[in-house]
């Protein structure tokens, strides 16, 4: 789960990390009022959960009320990389002499947290990492002990941060790690951490992503979760609790287990078709989930045919078959042809139950995919 910039900054500020004066605004008037109250220059920043907002015109620096109004009018309501902007953060523009980067994330490969510091802040840090890996000082943290103060100092000095602000930057990094650990962060970043002419440091941007699996013990953060302003189908998938990704093709794909669903996509491609989506209904899928999954895929106007591929472990083939029958029975006319392949636990029972008036049944994955690709070609609109 991603926090918005304004949410992350609140969390950081509460923990003692300096952040600029700022106010959230949902209307142009409120934005102008906020700008007047804070004093110019201010930045007007779209609150959408995507990177590269600046380049896309989602951040504007303004010097007076007129400019503030113009910027707020431009940004509020704009479409930013597919996200609708309905809030802006109006924020004191900080006068800086230097931009740093500090971040904490989980290093999967090492199985332990890593804290990072760079003097190349204010730009895309992933580009810096790719071009000049040594420009980022990395310090792995023992998750049992937590980050020790010396580790923060070491990272800061290794990165070449000026000695005058090194102590403060180390303090911010320590706080950031502690927050990351306490709040079940997946990533926590400040980019840029600005250094002012007075040698003060201030978090000019804030990223905080939370491990979705840990939200049960982070009730305050869970409350910050907002309806995703995403693609309607992806929002729907979220409501249904599916892992879903929409793609550009016309063969709808439903299956259980991420690896098998990806393999089904790959096979569609292998046999000359184009996948319309990734949809994993997960383990132990019962009738209702099957119905919801079919609803999802039928709702996608790009889809011309569907392959439904289940290999039962926890999931039982008979239950899936039952679900498919029920779901399709509910239609006066079934909108797309559906190819079903069941294997594993109770697969044979399932095959027997399936109503072949409603679906095409195939015994192997390869056959099922090929058949669906054929149907999609035939029924292509």
């Amino acid at each position, binding site marked *: 789960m991603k926090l918005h910039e304004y949410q992350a900054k609140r969390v950081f500020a509460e923990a003692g990390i300096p952040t600029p004066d700022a106010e959230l605004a949902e209307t142009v008037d409120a934005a102008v009022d906020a700008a007047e109250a804070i004093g110019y220059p201010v930045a007007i920043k779209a609150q959408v959960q995507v990177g590269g907002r600046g380049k896309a015109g989602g951040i504007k620096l303004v010097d007076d009320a007129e400019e503030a109004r113009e910027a707020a009018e431009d940004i509020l309501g704009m479409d930013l990389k597919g996200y609708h902007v309905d809030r802006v953060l109006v924020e004191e523009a900080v006068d800086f002499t230097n931009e740093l980067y500090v971040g904490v994330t*989980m290093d*999967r*490969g090492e*199985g*332990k*947290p890593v804290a990072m510091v760079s003097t190349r802040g204010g730009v895309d840090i*992933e580009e810096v990492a*790719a071009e000049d890996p040594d420009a980022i000082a990395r310090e792995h943290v*023992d*998750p*049992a002990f937590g980050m020790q103060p010396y580790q923060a100092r070491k990272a800061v000095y290794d990165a070449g941060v000026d000695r005058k602000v090194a102590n403060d930057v180390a303090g911010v990094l320590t706080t950031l790690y502690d927050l990351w*650990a306490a709040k*079940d962060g*997946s990533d926590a970043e400040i980019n840029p951490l600005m250094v002012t002419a007075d040698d003060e440091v201030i978090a000019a941007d804030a990223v905080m992503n939370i*491990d979705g*699996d*840990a939200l*049960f*013990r982070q009730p305050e953060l869970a409350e910050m979760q907002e309806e995703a302003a995403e693609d309607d189908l992806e929002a729907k998938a979220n409501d249904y609790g599916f*892992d879903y*990704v929409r*793609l550009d093709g016309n063969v709808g794909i439903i*299956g*259980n*287990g*991420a*690896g*098998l*669903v*990806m*393999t089904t*996509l*790959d*096979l*569609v*491609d*292998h046999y000359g078709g184009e*996948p319309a989506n*990734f949809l*994993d209904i997960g*383990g132990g899928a019962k009738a209702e989930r099957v119905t919801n999954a079919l609803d999802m895929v039928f709702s996608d106007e790009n889809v011309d045919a569907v392959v439904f591929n289940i*290999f*039962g*472990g*926890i*999931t039982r083939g008979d239950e899936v078959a039952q679900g498919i029958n029920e779901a399709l029975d509910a239609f006066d006319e079934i909108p797309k042809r559906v190819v079903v392949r069941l*294997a*594993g*636990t109770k697969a044979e029972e399932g095959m027997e139950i399936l109503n072949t008036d409603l679906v095409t049944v195939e015994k192997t*994955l*390869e056959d099922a995919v090929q058949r669906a690709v054929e149907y999609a070609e035939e029924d292509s609109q």
Partner: protein
Amino acid sequence: MSVLVDEDTRVVVQGITGGEGKFHTEQMLEYGTNVVAGAVPGKGGQEVAGVPVYDTVHRAAREEDANAAVVFVPPAFAADACFEALDAPVDLVVAITEGIPTQDMSKVYRKLQETDTHLVGPNCPGVITPGVAKLGILPGNIFSSGNVGLVSRSGTLTYQVVDNLTKRGLGQTTAIGIGGDPIIGTDFIDALELFEADPDTHAVVMCGEIGGEDEEEAARYIGANMDTPVVGFIAGRTAPPGKRMGHAGAIVSGSGTGTAQSKIDALENAGTPVGNTPEEVADHVEDIL
């Protein structure tokens, strides 16, 4: 022979009184697994499917000589269950639970490094030595005994590949579902090392997927250390970069490594043929044996 699981494996099921725990205990028993105990705090003295339940894993291990644990405990308590099993200690912990917070697993992983225990998972289907025992939720009927070792990050994909193997008469020594979470215990290299040391494993199938660098590292390991031939499969060739496909692991960063192609290239460079489809995987194995 086999790896991790054999005739001497004596299993304690953590969370045996829950719905999944109970169902899969019955399934494991039916398959012939020697499930000797359950462990659920406060439920000591009860029985599930004829198996005695203890309040702690330590007591289960002591009273019933359990040497392996399977974890069916809900995500909020699963890391603690893993710590308990590591401390008992048992030789093998198979953590089925999906959705364990990553920071919890980071701590379990840290503790694991100080032990001699193998932890498989979490978020995995388990381990099976066909005809002998299964620990987890794998559907026993698709497996058959033979000379192919299998290691996979994905559950149902494992079943698919095994199904293709079994239907060709290519049985398995042991199949290990290592799980798709960001932090797991036994990884590809650990599993490959076990299979390399097992004289009865004549070929290994390794099923990977997009995301992370584990397959690339495994390829380097194969090239440098393995005599046993390996056949690869990589799911997610058609996945668009930057999108997360279900598993926390299955995300492509778009930076060159972590993509299906980089993994396939790495394996092929290590002399490991990679199948385009599960059928082709079986073809390659057949060619080798």
